[in-house]
């Protein structure tokens, strides 16, 4: 298997073309790196070769490192990771030095990178080691270093080279946020050197005329100074002092990769380039060996992709949606119409009044116009997308729809009525999905004459932003319906999880206890600031009280009442309800009423926690410590996830983890609730849960599944792996 090929032309330019065998996108493996190393040696040693151009045989340059390789290196421990990373450094450093005399910096061979399209991760780190980077003028291409998003940081010299090329301040958004740019913006940011129509030709032309001085990187030249100032230069001082504060503030201190990245930049900036690479490799190794990065890579990259590619899809033929009918043009229906039309699906958007249907379609117009103002969408594209949406009151228009998504009021009667009306028109083999978030699928399926073709597809709001879609199987839901839902979700480029039918399904089932625990603590007189900060310091994007305000207090009241009615004596929310009921009674319904747990200004901007909280629920003399509050908030969610698995609502821990992060923002650094429990160890988790149960009630009692696992000394992912191997 070869990933790299080299050809030398008559003028003496050796072109090394990256074209990974059997893949649509280049990703770097260890074998491929060894091949590249060999070719570089060969070209540098060949008198006939005057210069080298590195490019891709695919439309894009490369998507980065094969993250499975990193997972493999990790198995060998810190030494294997460090050595592996250092060998990449040696290769890239060899390219950068290109055979030049290390003293006189003369006699090297020019090496240029020519990027036809996207260049991410090592796909940019390799070009950064070259002497000049040419990118095709391809507005769809994405160029950048997104490693931080999966819990690591650019570890093949990208951190050191970019921070030295641009200065710590300018490199910060690219490294710390993983910001991606199109080629023009990448050139403006100084990441690539030139944008060319034909980057390979431009690179060849440059290589043939490049002088010795053109090959010397600024950091290898005498008297080099870090742009924007090194850490103890007066200007650099402020940058570095500020950087730590900003990273702490933004990450709430829970992401090891951001810290390690910053340390690599800081420590590297104080020494020569080669020493800096060694420092970068040590921090990269440290991050990779940190359980958080492994869990993040596993959930946010490997398993997310596996689920998107249909890891749990039944083996039935392609069920791609061609014509979609949406019943109900409210907020959810309108959002589903937009994402579907945007993905090329023909949409019939139905509501009881034409005006309402049109309003639903206008939602797409609004989003597309916003895209135009941001230069992300063209007028032609807007016309095309809107052209796919038919807004009507006429059920006859549903004829020929192969999938229906019902998104009317959460009222079984209304739902049953529209189900019948739609089924009267749609083809016999069409699949009918309900976007309910609270009603049991199996009950709603009773309105259908074809319950095996009836399924739940639960979108989160706002539909165009939220990445997760929950697919819920009713008792009688058949395999083709599941495949249909999965293929639909794949078409609209979201991530699916498939769960069984039970109250609140998976995501809402786990988030509700989190909200309740926060509310309950307010009732107990715990400092509301402590509740909110404790949650965010565990990596939750929003504290529970803010989240209640966002989703509205009256919704919480409604859910509480319905749950209590359904559960009777088993209801655990009796100490939660007085708090939200009182807020609701006072008209503090959350952000929408500009009053809730928080105070808001006239414009609806959140000001701070409502001062009246203290008067209504007096601050307890003795305040719990931070850990106690955090454990309550995290275990409330995590134990519920375990119960969902125990009860068979969840059937795959990968879905439990990916769904938690994408669905309700469960602390991404953990890799999800099951990864977090593994990190902690089942025995320790049981111990904490038992202690919490003793202090705060049975809702924290560890589920049997977890206790058994602790007894066996097992772990969720360990046991899943052995089951998969068996």
């Amino acid at each position, binding site marked *: 298997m070869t990933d790299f090929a080299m050809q030398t032309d008559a003028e003496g330019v050796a072109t090394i073309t990256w074209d990974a065998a059997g893949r649509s996108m280049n990703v770097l493996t260890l074998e491929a790196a060894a091949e590249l190393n060999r070719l570089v040696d060969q070209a540098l040693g060949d008198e006939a070769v005057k210069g080298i151009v590195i490019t891709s045989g695919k439309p894009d340059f490369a998507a980065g490192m094969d993250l499975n390789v990193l997972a493999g290196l990790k198995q060998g421990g810190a030494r294997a990771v460090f050595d592996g990373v250092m060998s990449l450094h040696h290769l890239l450093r060899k390219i950068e030095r290109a055979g030049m005399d290390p003293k006189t910096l003369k006699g090297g061979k020019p090496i240029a990178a020519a990027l036809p399209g996207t260049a991410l991760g090592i796909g940019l780190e390799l070009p950064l080691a070259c002497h000049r980077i040419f990118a095709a003028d391809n507005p769809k291409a994405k160029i950048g270093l997104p490693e931080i998003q999966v819990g690591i940081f650019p570890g093949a010299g990208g951190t050191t080279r970019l921070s030295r090329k641009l200065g710590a301040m300018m490199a910060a958004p690219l490294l710390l946020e993983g910001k991606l740019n199109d080629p023009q913006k990448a050139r403006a940011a100084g990441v690539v050197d030139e944008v060319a129509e034909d980057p390979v030709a431009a690179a060849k032309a440059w290589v043939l005329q490049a002088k010795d001085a053109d090959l010397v990187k600024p950091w290898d030249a005498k008297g080099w100074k870090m742009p924007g100032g090194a850490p103890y230069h007066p200007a650099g001082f402020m940058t570095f002092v500020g950087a730590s504060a900003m990273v*702490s503030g933004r990450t709430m201190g829970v992401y090891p990769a951001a810290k390690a990245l910053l340390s690599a930049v800081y420590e590297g900036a104080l020494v020569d380039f080669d020493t800096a690479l060694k420092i970068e490799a040590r921090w990269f190794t440290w991050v990779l060996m940190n359980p958080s990065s492994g869990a993040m890579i596993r959930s946010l990259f490997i398993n997310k992709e596996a689920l998107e590619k249909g890891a749990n899809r039944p083996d039935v033929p392609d069920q791609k949606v061609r014509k979609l009918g949406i019943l109900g043009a409210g907020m959810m229906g309108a959002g589903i119409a937009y994402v579907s039309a945007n993905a090329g699906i023909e949409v019939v958007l139905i509501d009881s009044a034409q005006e309402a249907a049109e309003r639903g379609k206008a939602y797409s117009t609004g989003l597309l116009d916003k895209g135009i103002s941001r230069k992300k969408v063209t007028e032609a594209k807007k016309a095309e997308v809107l052209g796919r949406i038919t807004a009507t009151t006429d059920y006859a228009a549903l004829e020929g729809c192969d999938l229906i998504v019902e998104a009317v009021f959460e009222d079984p009667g209304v739902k049953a009525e529209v189900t019948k009306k739609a089924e009267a028109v749609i083809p016999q083999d069409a699949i009918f999905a309900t976007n309910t978030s609270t009603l049991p699928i199996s009950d709603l399926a009773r309105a259908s004459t074809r319950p095996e073709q009836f399924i739940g597809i639960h979108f989160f709001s706002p539909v165009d932003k939220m990445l997760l879609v929950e697919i819920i199987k009713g008792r009688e839901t058949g395999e083709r319906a599941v495949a249909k839902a999965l293929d639909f979700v794949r078409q609209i480029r979201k991530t699916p999880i498939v769960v069984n039918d039970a109250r609140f399904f998976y995501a809402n089932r786990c988030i509700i206890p989190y909200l309740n625990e926060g509310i309950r603590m307010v009732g107990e007189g715990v400092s509301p600031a402590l509740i909110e900060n404790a949650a965010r310091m565990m990596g939750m994007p929003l504290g529970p009280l803010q989240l209640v305000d966002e989703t509205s207090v009256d919704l919480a009241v409604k859910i509480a009442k319905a749950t209590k009615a359904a559960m009777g004596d088993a209801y655990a929310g009796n100490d939660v309800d007085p708090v939200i009921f009182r807020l609701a009674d006072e008209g503090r319904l959350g952000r929408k009423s500009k009053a809730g747990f928080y105070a808001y200004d006239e414009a609806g901007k959140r000001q701070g926690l409502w001062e009246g909280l203290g008067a209504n629920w007096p601050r307890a003399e003795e305040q719990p410590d931070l850990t106690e509050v955090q454990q309550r908030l995290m275990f409330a969610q995590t134990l519920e996830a375990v119960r969902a698995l125990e009860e068979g609502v969840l059937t795959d821990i990968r879905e439990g983890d990916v769904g938690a992060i994408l669905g309700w923002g469960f602390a991404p650094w953990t890799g999800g609730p099951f990864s977090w429990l593994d990190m902690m160890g089942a025995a320790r988790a049981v111990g904490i849960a038992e202690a919490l149960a003793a202090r705060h009630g049975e809702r924290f009692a560890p589920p049997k599944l977890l206790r058994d696992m602790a007894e066996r000394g097992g772990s969720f992912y360990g046991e899943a792996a052995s089951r998969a191997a068996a």
Partner: protein
Amino acid sequence: MTDAYIFDAARTPRGKGRRDGSLHEVTSLALSARLLNAMAERNGLEGHAVEDLIWGNVTQVMEQGGCLARSAVLMSDLDERIPGVSINRFCASGMEAVNLAANQVKAGAGEAYLAGGVEMMGRVAMGSDGAAIAVDPALAMKAYFVPQGISADLIATEYGFTREEADALAVESQRRAKLAWDEGRFDRSIVPVLDQNGLTILERDEHMRPDTTVESLAGLKPAFKEMGEVMPGFDKVALLKYPHLERVEHIHHAGNSSGIVDGAAAVLVGTKEWGEARGLTPRARIVATAKIGTDPTMMLTGPVPVTDRVLEAAGMGIRDIDLFEVNEAFASVVLRFMQAFQVDPSVVNVNGGAIAMGHPLGATGAILIGTLLDELERQDKETGLATLCVASGMGAATIIERV
């Protein structure tokens, strides 16, 4: 173990620490040497009279670098056999110098020391020596580093001090400092700064603004709000350490924080026998010394635990202390001290403090001890306690007793 006594204490007037400050033309070396010469002359320090010069100085780079203490000895008329050591415990450097001297004397390691410190903040900028705790992300994040102004505001938030209380304390500091100068209470300690021709450069603290009122301060914008709330957002770092707080209240500004000034101070410490042999009369005994580390984020609360510690070392209670000097680094530091020990404001910083007269970092600790001693003598009181908050979360304290 023998006792350590203070025989003399002197200081220069404090000049504004900026280009138009009167001492801006004087080098750190020259200011140190001239003050040491005055001490030698006042006390007849000839030959190998003292064991060492312990010289506090925070920003030890450029002219203050290279062991300024040794350079100062060589520049002065002191005997070259007196070696010189520069030390840095940030704002308590001058106090630590005196305490180290006292403790070496007590332990029998030398009979007498010159101790004190200097800081020419207008010539060698604060922070120009770098600081890993602020710049190195590994420690900055581990220690939840925030600048001192944020820490001072955090103290106010945690312990409930208002802007009005802080401003009132600042106005009182100005009033007391003016009164002290007008009544000549600093006369014994002040060594005017003269040039090489004997011409006077500065003879009075020049940072004071005696016409300050609560109303005039009310117009000043909080100095640390922007860096706390916007760029780069230090408040969030502080709240990570103090998550029960929702926000940091920014109450400090230039008018209720210590002034940036140039200045030096020295204290002569020795055994009773050493003094007797030279005809010098001890003025006070150094009863106890202490230092402590505290949370680096709130950073400036050290005076409270270090006072507990020094009282314990002295076998005393807070009511045994007649007068206090608590460095006015920021108003909230002093407010917190008075709140914690429930001491009467009238016995704390009787003659004003660093808000009025300025805080030459390396020298202030020695200034406080000298000022405390002068005031104990003026009021004919017995026991005094001086303490300072210290950067990176530390505190230092000294108890003296007249003899």
